[in-house]
């Protein structure tokens, strides 16, 4: 075995360190020990909730005894909204009154006063459980700033005025600027501090993306995508209808296992050549392919960035998506194939192949496996990763760790130029997700997400059926107008709130609905998904532009059909069609 270079060793060490850090998460405070030991003195325990009955983290609890503040007794609510004030430093004189003051940015101050019974119990050394303390939201100037910045970011991304990462980075900078500079002038402009903003960053998502980027980077240079496309051409023997079915199947499966943007970037150029070889409009192959890739990605946790976000937030693992969504995806793909064959029937019937031997040879060369040895090794590691994704859930192996282990194994075994491989990690995309989490955290912090959640709850009531329908279709339609990644990230707490408040939603159907709506909604318009945009970019460069109008004319009916099928599947799978089911 060849020794690794210093740079390679350093990179591998860094990857291992990242994996270890991720498993142990030393940055997360551990309260377990404190909670397990019984308090030596009487204590006040309770929960702080927001208007939607969701836990409020970080509320400051100040204790006043006989109207005097006791700073040493101050406490803070935890992630589940709970707090515990241990009364171990009370005055020697008997106390006549006890009051808790609860302060939290973006909420009105609240207080709780101990009654005679509570006071008596405390004097006897007994602990007291305080009734849930509900805080009222306060709309501050910070609320309007965060909301305006968030909306502006969505528009900038949708209109492609700035790169996604630049848009989210700029938004984050404005939020921090206002929060720190403005917040120093008037507390009304305060949004959150840096420490709290980092709590909103989901490192599970970041490390899963990072690991998968390395895996994809190694896989894509093997030529497997191009080989598959060429085999589709060879097997179909000029029958365009059969060809498009095979190509759609390939892109759907590849998108589920890797990601849809990579799949389309590598499939589109050779698909264009195949279409020219068959003398048909390349868009009659490309558009079905990209639509299938947007749908196929829904099947797995790693198939789309939106699924990675949903899986991490809702704790849905690889098999959760596989079991609950794959049958629906297959049904939607079948419906899409039917639509495509009907829509392009004349094109496909007119296909013919009069390609010269020289051009055929060129096509064949483009569709060969470039690195068979790397492909074999990548296949073995990838199969092991799939097994870990599925069975690792049994021993709490988080997907991000599996992806990092797979990436490290591929780098070691396949042994490409490791420094070059690590350069292929798309740091701008990782930066996009980190900054996006912080921007979404800001609107969550100031209460915008809570307002949306409350409004949706009012609209749906306690009906899970209506909740699913609203979430799926709103996600599908809005994904065509605004980028679906920020949209999904913002909707996660909303789906979480509805899941905790609508009876029967504990089966996570609303999160699956969000997955179906946001990913299938990528087919609503050209800007609905990154895969659409890169496909349009390639087609344009080949001289076959995909206009917004042309895309929508084909994709919108497909979106309606597939989302309807996807919705129907969810209703059947989660027994929502049966009254009382």
């Amino acid at each position, binding site marked *: 075995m060849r020794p690794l270079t210093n740079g390679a060793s350093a990179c591998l060490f860094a990857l291992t360190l990242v994996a270890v850090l991720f498993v142990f998460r030393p940055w997360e405070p551990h309260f377990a020990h404190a909670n397990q030991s019984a308090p030596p003195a009487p204590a006040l325990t309770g929960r702080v909730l927001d208007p939607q009955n969701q836990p409020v983290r970080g509320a400051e609890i100040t204790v006043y005894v006989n109207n005097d503040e006791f700073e040493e007794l101050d406490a803070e609510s935890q992630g589940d909204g709970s707090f515990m004030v241990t009364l171990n430093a009370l005055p020697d004189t008997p106390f006549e009154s006890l009051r808790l003051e609860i302060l939290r940015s973006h909420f009105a101050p609240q207080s709780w006063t101990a009654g005679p019974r509570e006071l008596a119990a405390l004097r006897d050394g007994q602990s007291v459980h305080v009734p849930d303390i509900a805080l009222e939201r306060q709309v501050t100037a910070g609320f309007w700033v965060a909301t305006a910045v968030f909306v502006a970011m969505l528009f900038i991304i949708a209109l492609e005025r700035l790169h996604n990462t630049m848009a989210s980075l700029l938004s984050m900078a404005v939020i921090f600027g206002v929060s720190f500079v403005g917040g120093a002038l008037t507390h009304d402009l305060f949004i959150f501090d840096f420490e709290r903003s980092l709590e909103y960053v989901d490192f599970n998502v970041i490390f899963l993306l990072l690991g998968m980027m390395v895996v994809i980077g190694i896989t894509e240079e093997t030529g497997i995508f191009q080989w598959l496309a060429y085999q589709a051409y060879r097997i179909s023997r000029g029958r365009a209808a059969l060809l498009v079915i095979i190509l759609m199947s390939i892109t759907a499966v590849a998108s589920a296992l890797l990601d849809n943007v990579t799949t389309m970037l590598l499939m589109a150029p050779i698909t264009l050549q195949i279409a020219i070889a068959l003398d048909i409009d390349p868009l009659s192959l490309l558009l079905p392919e990209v639509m299938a890739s947007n749908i196929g990605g829904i099947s797995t946790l790693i198939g789309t*960035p939106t699924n990675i976000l949903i899986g991490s937030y809702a704790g849905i693992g690889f098999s959760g998506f596989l079991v609950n969504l794959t049958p629906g995806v297959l049904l939607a793909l079948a419906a899409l194939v039917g639509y495509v064959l009907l829509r392009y029937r004349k094109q496909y019937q007119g296909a013919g192949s009069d390609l010269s031997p020289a051009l055929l040879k060129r096509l064949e060369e483009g569709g060969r496996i470039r690195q068979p040895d790397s492909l074999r090794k990548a296949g073995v590691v990838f199969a092991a990763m799939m097994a870990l994704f599925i069975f690792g859930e049994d021993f709490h192996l988080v997907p991000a760790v599996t992806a990092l282990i797979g990436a490290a194994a591929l780098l070691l075994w396949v042994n490409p130029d490791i420094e070059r491989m690590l350069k292929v990690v798309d740091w701008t*995309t990782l930066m996009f997700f980190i900054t996006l989490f912080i921007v979404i955290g800001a609107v969550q912090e100031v209460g915008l997400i809570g307002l949306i959640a409350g409004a949706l709850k009012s609209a749906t009531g306690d009906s899970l059926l209506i909740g699913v329908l609203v979430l799926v279709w709103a996600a599908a339609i809005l994904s065509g107008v605004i980028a679906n990644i920020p949209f999904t990230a913002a909707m996660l707490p909303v789906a979480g709130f509805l899941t905790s408040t609508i009876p029967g939603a504990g089966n996570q159907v609303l999160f699956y609905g969000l997955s179906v709506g946001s990913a299938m909604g990528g087919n609503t318009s050209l800007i609905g998904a990154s895969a659409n945009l890169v496909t349009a*970019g390639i087609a344009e460069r080949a001289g076959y532009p995909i206009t917004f109008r042309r895309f929508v004319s084909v994709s919108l009916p497909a979106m309606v059909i597939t989302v309807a099928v996807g919705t129907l599947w969810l209703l059947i799978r989660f027994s929502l069609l049966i009254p009382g089911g």
Partner: protein
Amino acid sequence: MGKILCATRGGEAAVRAQETAIGLAKDRGDALLFFFVVDTDFLQRSVAAVRPDIVQAELESMGEFLLAVAQERAQKQSVEAEIMVRSGYLRDELLTAIRKEDVTTVVLGTPTGPGSVFVLEGLQALAEGIADESGVKVVIAGSQNDEEQG
């Protein structure tokens, strides 16, 4: 004997430009070079793991295929043509190729439609710029009366 450079892609508009270039080469007895430029700027639109080097190689391969189709079209009309694929910005690569290949005439296709990276005004500005900077004749093919610059 001069040399005609035809910057081309696929699609109907490109075929018109190719036919114009083939016709000119035949009439004048000039050499013909079909030219394709790979530009991967669109990758900026994606939020995913993207390897620009791999995508560029794929697009170059696609470009070679498109040019080979054009080359066969010329061959069928008894015109021998060469092909050249470059990566970068169209204007810069065109000027470099004009210098290196001693090109005397450049043929450009008309915009392919509303989704094209070029609008007609932009293409005319490009043609004028190339004509001014390199001194070669630039023909915008595809319209009923091919426009000449330079």
